[in-house]
């Protein structure tokens, strides 16, 4: 055998270490000794790589904005990489860290491999495996037993899943509650009050010139981060004419606020007051039409909110308010936005309505570069829109009913209320022996460990679905989710299980499986007409095309929400705080872990929180001078005491933290939630006071006061930043800045 033949053989047999650089595939084996395979190139040895075939599939993820379009790279039946779907209007090829991490959810080492049955006491966390046949039988008997008094708890659902949930709820005669971040409930109510819209808004940031944001984390985890980030990119790049200017108003220099041209600190909960004050300045100085203002702020005497009256309450100067008003009114189109912590106060609804109403004053509602309202679903019956979550106040009777035994069966999917609701509500204890609990979950989390039966469900990349994003891009949109890999574990689609359960409960559903449902509804979409796919008649081809595109959308059918004057905004109110600590306690959702629902993904755990760059832990951001006053520095453990309890967390000295606000991130404190999340840090939901927003009843998680005490312990806070506060060297800035023209 000649040497070359031997080498060819080695290469053909796929010996792993063979590296072929300096050669190109098309010329292999053409007998030129210069192009012979080399076992190892002398020097030019860039990367150990082998070629193979990869496939990209379009699918969708309902967890962000109710449906974001993805493309997934699949290699030999394994999902390798998730990216944004370039065709899908909300993503346009872009993605977030969370979407990138979906492969980790799929291949998570602690994913539940098959049905589990409680063994021993509830909450003991010990389960025994059982076959799907047995599990199905057990589940069916529970459904039969629980008919008429069943509670289905899910995360926010829309589209095909929501349709099935509706059918199921009807069939079993139970109640469906949605668990969603509480401040979003306030936001939805504000949308109704201000814009008369049932849906979350879209913002035409790309064409806007000025953005006044009251605390909304729109670049990180607020409603539709990718879409808003794309808009922000266009806003900054000056697509709409010139570079947009962004001012952030709020109690925290958050990861989003750091991008603002100017951050104006105001005391927590005073966003609404400042907004009214802005309105007062704008109207009194003739910057906007006075008549419009009187109808918008109907019944509120704006002059009571002149800057000098508001300033001290908000913790800023009257000049700042005036300056802000002038800037806002002076640059058109301008957008006012509010959310996240602004909504999580006892006066959250007032804060939001007062701010969003400002959009009317500058004429940005429904206009180019303004607030765009989203239309209804193209097929409201089979693809319902997302509806709001259940507020904390509404959770109380539900929990009481469970406690009293009025609810026989509790089904939980894609929600972890035991973790996410303050313990004061007593949900965990309410799940007594008389109530059967079934969890459709992939991971043992706080709620799942309370279940009698765990039925693992398919994760995003394994399942079918049609989702109506909320907020949408401003026109009707449906995202198609399809399995890109075969199920990695022995799990079933939640929708399939629900269809089965509904049938068991006596319902008659037009679809037998989730896939059938999706195919049918896409057919209905085709019949409805319009949309991104034209000229395709064959239903099969149509479906395949929708699969390839990742969804259906019709950009010609933008919502025609008339900029009518809003319903009367809520009554002006000042925030109320619980407890008598001397500091405000401001928990905040982080860009990666959000409210803790994704803490099991190691990439997200290891992703530095943008401002502090801390990872894997809970800490409290303390202002540098406050820390000096307290005699603590980064790494010192402090004890935070609220009216509901106290926790010990490490200090991170943060020069941007307000002097009288202590910031604690959400996301950690899981008792059990896979190896990457459990027994790590503290859960702020567990020690905030259970205050509610006055009108919506949503949990006001930012309405707590706290006291801080040094505990004589030290830890090393895991973070990306080095051991000194990162200020730039004056002569050699890493980040060069130039003034705007």
């Amino acid at each position: 055998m000649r040497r070359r033949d031997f080498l060819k053989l080695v290469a053909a047999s796929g010996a792993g270490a063979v590296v072929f650089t300096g050669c190109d595939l098309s010329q292999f084996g053409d007998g030129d000794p210069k192009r012979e395979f080399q076992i190892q190139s002398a020097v030019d040895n860039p990367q150990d790589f082998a070629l193979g075939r990869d496939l990209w599939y379009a699918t969708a993820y309902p967890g962000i904005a109710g449906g974001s379009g993805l493309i997934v790279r699949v290699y030999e039946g394994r999902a390798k990489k998730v990216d944004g779907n370039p065709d899908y209007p909300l993503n346009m090829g872009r993605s977030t860290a969370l979407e990138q991490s979906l492969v980790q959810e799929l291949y998570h080492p602690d994913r539940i491999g098959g049905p589990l049955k409680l063994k021993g006491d509830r909450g003991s966390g010990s389960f025994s495996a059982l076959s799907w046949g047995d599990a199905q039988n057990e589940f069916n008997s529970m459904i039969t037993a629980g008919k008429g008094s069943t509670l289905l708890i899910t995360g926010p659902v829309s589209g095909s899943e929501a349709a099935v949930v509706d059918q199921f709820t009807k069939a079993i005669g139970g109640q469906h509650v949605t668990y969603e971040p509480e401040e979003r409930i306030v936001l939805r109510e504000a949308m109704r009050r201000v814009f008369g819209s049932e849906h979350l808004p879209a913002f035409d940031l790309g064409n806007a010139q000025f953005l006044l944001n009251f605390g909304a984390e729109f670049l990180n985890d607020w409603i539709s981060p990718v879409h808003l980030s794309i808009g922000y990119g266009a806003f900054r790049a000056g697509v709409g004419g010139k570079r947009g200017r962004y001012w952030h108003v709020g109690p925290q220099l958050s990861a989003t606020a750091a991008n603002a041209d100017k951050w104006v600190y105001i005391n927590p909960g005073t966003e609404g007051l400042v907004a009214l004050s802005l309105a007062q300045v704008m109207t009194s100085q003739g910057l906007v039409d006075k008549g419009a203002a009187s109808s918008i702020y109907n019944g509120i005497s704006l002059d009571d909110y002149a800057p000098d009256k508001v300033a001290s309450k908000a913790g800023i100067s009257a000049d700042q308010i005036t300056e802000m008003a002038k800037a806002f009114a002076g640059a058109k189109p301008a957008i006012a936005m509010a959310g996240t912590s602004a909504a999580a106060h006892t006066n959250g609804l007032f804060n939001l309505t007062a701010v969003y109403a400002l959009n009317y004053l500058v004429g940005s509602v429904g206009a180019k570069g303004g607030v765009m309202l989203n239309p209804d679903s193209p097929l409201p019956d089979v693809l319902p829109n997302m509806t709001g979550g259940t507020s904390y106040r509404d959770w109380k009777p539900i929990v009481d009913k469970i406690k009293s035994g009025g609810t026989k069966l509790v089904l939980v999917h894609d929600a972890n209320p035991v973790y996410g609701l303050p313990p004061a509500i007593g949900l965990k204890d309410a799940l007594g022996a008389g109530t059967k609990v079934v969890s459709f979950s992939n991971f043992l989390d706080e709620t799942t460990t309370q279940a009698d039966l765990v039925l693992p469900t398919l994760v995003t990349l394994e399942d079918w679905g049609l989702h109506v994003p909320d907020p949408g891009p401003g026109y009707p949109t449906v995202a198609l989710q399809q399995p890109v890999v075969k199920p990695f574990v022995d799990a079933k689609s939640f929708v399939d299980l629900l269809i089965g359960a509904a049938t068991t409960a006596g319902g008659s559903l037009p679809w037998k499986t989730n896939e059938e449902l999706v195919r049918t509804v896409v057919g209905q979409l085709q019949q409805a007409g319009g949309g991104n796919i034209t000229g395709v008649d064959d239903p099969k081809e149509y479906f395949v095309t929708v699969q390839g595109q990742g969804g259906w959308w019709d950009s010609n059918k933008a919502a025609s929400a008339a900029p009518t004057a809003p319903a009367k905004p809520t009554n002006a109110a000042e925030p109320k705080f619980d407890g008598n600590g001397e500091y405000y306690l401001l928990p905040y959702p982080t860009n990666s872990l959000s409210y803790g629902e994704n803490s099991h993904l190691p990439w997200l755990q290891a992703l530095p929180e943008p401002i502090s760059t801390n990872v894997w832990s809970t800490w409290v951001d303390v202002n540098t001078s406050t820390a000096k006053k307290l005699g603590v520095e980064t790494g010192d453990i402090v004890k935070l005491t609220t009216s509901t309890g106290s926790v010990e967390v490490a200090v991170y000295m943060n020069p941007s933290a307000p002097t009288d606000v202590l910031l604690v991130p959400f996301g950690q404190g899981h008792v059990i939630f896979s190896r990457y999340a459990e027994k790590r840090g503290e859960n702020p939901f567990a020690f905030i006071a259970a205050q509610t927003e006055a009108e919506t009843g949503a949990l006001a998680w930012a309405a707590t006061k706290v006291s801080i005490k040094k505990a004589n312990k030290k830890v090393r806070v895991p973070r990306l930043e080095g051991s000194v506060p990162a200020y730039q060297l004056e002569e050699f800035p890493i980040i060069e800045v130039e003034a705007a023209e």
Partner: protein
Amino acid sequence: MQERRNLPQMEVIQELLLPVTRTTMWMWIGFIVLGTILAAFAFAVAWMFYWGIGVTGLNRPGMWGFMIVDFVFWIGISHAGVMISAILRLTQAEWRRPVTRAAEVMTMFSLMTAMTLPFIHTGRPWRTAYWVFPYDFWRGIFPDVRSALVMDPSAVFTYLTGTILFIYITTVPDIATLRDRSTGWRKGLYRVLALGWQNDERQWMIQAATGFLLAALMLSIFVSVHSIVSWDFSFSLDPVWHTSVWAPYFVIGAVHSGVSAAVTLMVLMRWMFGFDKYIREEHFDAIGRLLVVVATAWVFFFMLDVFFALFNQDPRETAVMKMRFEQWPYTLMLVLIFVFGYFIPVPIWMFRKFRRNIKLMFWTSIMVNIGMWSERYWLVVPGLERKYEWTFDWNFYRPGIVEITIILGTFALVPFLFMCFSKIFPPVSIWEEKEGQNFLQEIKVGKASIPAIVREF
């Protein structure tokens, strides 16, 4: 300066062979204590091989730490050998005689110890030898000679080879002495090693010529070794490291610490082997004078380094210098460098009375090496902790327990090997001592009798 003492030749031989023939209690203690530390050292190295460099305290960008500092230190100590044996031989300084052998042996062992450190400090030590030394060319892969890390082992191994040759050449007559006085396996060993030495004139001429030639050749290696060690740092662009003074500065610092270590060794040999008749006060006196000059030159270069790092007021350098001056533990180290390395020992060495005080010389020499170890740390580590304007990445390095054990181990390894050596070969050159006896003369000026030596002119 050299007092003449007439000792019978037999007595000289017997007394200088003491460590070979007898194991004193101090040697037993030494073997046991050092052996224990070495066991811990071996365990630490094995632990690090098994788990990886992760067990150290290194981080990004502080990629080099204790082991590199210690490497530089031991290379520095090794410079005592050539300084004493070669330079003093070439300049015909008589007082070198009792120290040359010990200093050369210390050089050999500290070089070996030093080279261990960068070797085990690499990420994949099992491949290091294979890749760095081009002993196999069939794959056409050469090491990159532009890298100081290739020059470095080349220079160090040349130095080591030279040192071993030098020790061997200068030990042959003594081996022959041992051969004639031993039995058993030792006899066999010495017979082979003595190369048929018969004490004839031609052999002596060859031996002397080789010794001189090697001494002259090794002078250039002497300078190159620590220059190249300094280039490991100054060829990079790191602020404070990238400075042209480091090469001579490292060399002079090496001589400072090396000669001080030689003093320590001289005292220890007096105490352990009872060589009081051979290692005498006047030797300490002479070496003390040398140290004053060397230390002063070292301080001059130290000041050059500091001043011209601050000279341009480049914020990148200033940031490192500020940390060195203001922050723990660098402040402490700076104090150690100045006070232990210069301001305590040098004023003491200025006085003849103190130079002849053995205990004082012992402690001052120990002090110098504490200062010099700190100096190497002070030089090497901060440059990485404050590397360029990435204040975000600025970090703090602290050694792990494994590193500390390894460093302690190196301090045990060199004396341990030295003691093993002295169990086989005399640590003080017998023939040189005898030759010295002949060279020493006296001269009468008036009533005074002045020590004198034989000279060519």
